[in-house]
């Protein structure tokens, strides 16, 4: 990676252009619009040639690290390889040119994709029906909670406005609940990170709309008492929401529907190999049990608008381009390969965990699923923090794991290798992690002052937040 210091605005030169448009063949132009409706200033967009643009963004890309660059063990984000056939399919000109409001008779291929993909997701998760409209995981969560609320409201059960969320949950869970108008009630975790069922029992009453859970949880541990939890929550009239962020290890092994979940979302950009795009576009389909089918949001694949529907949550029918990629992946997996997807992700995680647990503090020493969490270095006397380890990893050409999450520990390092990484890649990572542990003991300053080889080094986040500069200063 090479440091490159331009912004596109700084390449601008009056009179230069990078577009190619036909000459104006019409009698009228925007000059006919009443002047009171026209803007008075010319927008200061860059004026650059096509080659300026291509070089600029190519140079920017050279300061970026993607899954295609190297190992990306970012816990909870499932950075698996993004197959290239997915991109080829989504780029098909025919798909790109379809208007979302075209008559149904002219988009039968699109409808077939929605049907086939939904059916596959149902088969994989054990849920009866899906909406593919949500744009991202958090959007799926919100949609799922809307379905939960709508269910209770339509039954006249209006006092169910509280949702139980484990204290170890991703921040999106409580945030989604609040946006949905639900009150968050925290259920405690036991020292091993699993839900404290005794505490849960004290929270259950007729004001509970439901519970949001991930399984495996944020420590990568399977909630073994899920059957009991489902019975308890259902017993009090609540619903179970499954946060699909951690679905990957269950792919081909366990179906959330079979565990008693009523509503769930999937992150197609995690579990189903579509690229993250530097923070989207993703897709967050939401699946429901049969008795909740009529609550799915609009617009619906079946074209129906049942009275109970949860509302409209998107302009059209979601990120179609992303759905194409996910289905290409499902077709490649097929009924055969899916069986190994989750298990190999789990094997990779356990292999890394067992290979490093003498150098890094492993708070919960049991078999994990797709990911696990260290609480910093085993030797905490060096003063080297999790942040330092993360930054030092960058020097060695690896993306850092997720750090300082979950909040259960002070020095969390959350590692998720995914099933697409080879033993050789994992071995190289293990070697580097061990080497950094050695450096921390022998030359702590080297680690504390890392990274040394990246285009920039520890940008000052405090200064950025105190005096925000969030747009180009002309």
């Amino acid at each position, binding site marked *: 990676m090479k440091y490159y210091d331009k912004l596109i605005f700084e390449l601008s030169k009056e009179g230069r252009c990078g577009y190619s448009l036909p000459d104006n063949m019409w009698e009228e132009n925007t000059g006919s619009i009443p002047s009171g409706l026209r803007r008075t200033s010319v927008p200061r967009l860059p004026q650059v040639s096509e080659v300026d643009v291509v070089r600029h963004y190519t140079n920017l890309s050279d300061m970026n690290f993607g899954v295609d660059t190297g190992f990306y063990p970012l816990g909870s984000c499932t950075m698996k390889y993004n197959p290239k056939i997915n991109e080829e399919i989504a780029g098909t000109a025919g798909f790109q040119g379809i208007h979302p409001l075209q008559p149904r008779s002219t988009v039968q291929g699109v409808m077939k994709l929605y049907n086939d993909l939904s059916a596959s997701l149902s088969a994989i998760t054990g849920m009866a029906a899906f909406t593919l409209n949500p744009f991202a995981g958090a959007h799926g969560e919100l949609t799922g909670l809307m379905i939960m609320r709508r269910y209770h409201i339509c039954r006249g059960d209006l006092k169910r406005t509280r949702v139980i969320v484990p204290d170890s949950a991703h921040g999106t869970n409580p945030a989604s609940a609040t946006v949905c108008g639900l009150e968050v009630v925290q259920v405690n975790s036991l020292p091993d990170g699993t839900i404290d069922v005794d505490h849960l029992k004290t929270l259950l009453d007729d004001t509970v709309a439901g519970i949001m859970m991930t399984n495996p949880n944020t420590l990568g541990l399977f909630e073994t008492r899920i059957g009991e939890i489902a019975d308890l929550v259902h017993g009090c009239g609540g619903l179970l929401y499954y946060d699909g962020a951690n679905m990957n290890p269950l792919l081909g092994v366990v179906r959330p529907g079979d565990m008693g979940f009523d509503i769930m979302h999937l992150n197609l950009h995690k579990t189903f190999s579509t690229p993250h795009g530097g923070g989207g576009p993703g897709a967050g389909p939401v699946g429901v049990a049969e008795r909740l089918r009529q609550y799915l949001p609009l617009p619906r694949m079946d074209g129906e608008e049942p009275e109970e529907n949860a509302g409209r949550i998107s302009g059209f029918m979601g990120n179609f381009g992303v759905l194409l990629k996910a289905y290409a992946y499902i077709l490649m997996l097929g009924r055969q390969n899916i069986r190994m997807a989750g298990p190999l992700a789990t094997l990779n995680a356990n292999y890394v965990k067992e290979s490093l647990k003498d150098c890094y503090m492993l708070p919960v020493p049991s078999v994990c699923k797709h990911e696990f969490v260290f609480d910093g270095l085993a030797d905490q006397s060096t003063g080297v923090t999790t942040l330092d380890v993360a930054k030092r990893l960058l020097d060695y050409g690896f993306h850092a794991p997720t750090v*300082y999450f979950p909040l259960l520990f002070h020095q969390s390092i959350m590692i998720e290798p995914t099933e697409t990484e080879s033993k050789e890649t994992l071995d190289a990572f293990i070697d580097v992690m061990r080497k950094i542990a050695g450096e921390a003991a022998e030359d702590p300053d080297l680690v504390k002052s890392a990274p040394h080889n990246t285009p920039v080094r520890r940008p000052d*986040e*405090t200064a950025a*937040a*105190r005096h925000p500069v969030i747009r180009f200063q002309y």
Partner: protein
Amino acid sequence: MSKTVAGLRYSESHEWVGIDGNIATIGITDYAQHALGNLSYVDMPETDDEVTKGEEFGAVESVKAASDLYSPVSGKVVEINTELEDAPERLNVDPYANWIIKVEMSDPSELEDLMDEAAYIAFCEKEK
């Protein structure tokens, strides 16, 4: 060992209160600013807002954390420290010299529920 100041009252949520007649001057303690790290923003109420003992009246933010501020007393906000709008770092430099709000107390007896310096020092020891 975080600093404390004699003569102030302290809350369990790490606010300090200075008393002048029925005006309470409220800030955050040295313990709190240490725990939060470099502060980047102070979210304050407006003057004339009512605050209630034990309820939030604002928040302090650092790069990676945000913490609500809880009012140690009830009453009406009579002044806010506008200097903090552009210089939240003042709370890191000297949290006792830089107050956040001043409240005209509606029930000064609420002060009795707060800790004195010695009690607060002992409280912080236990928090560790």
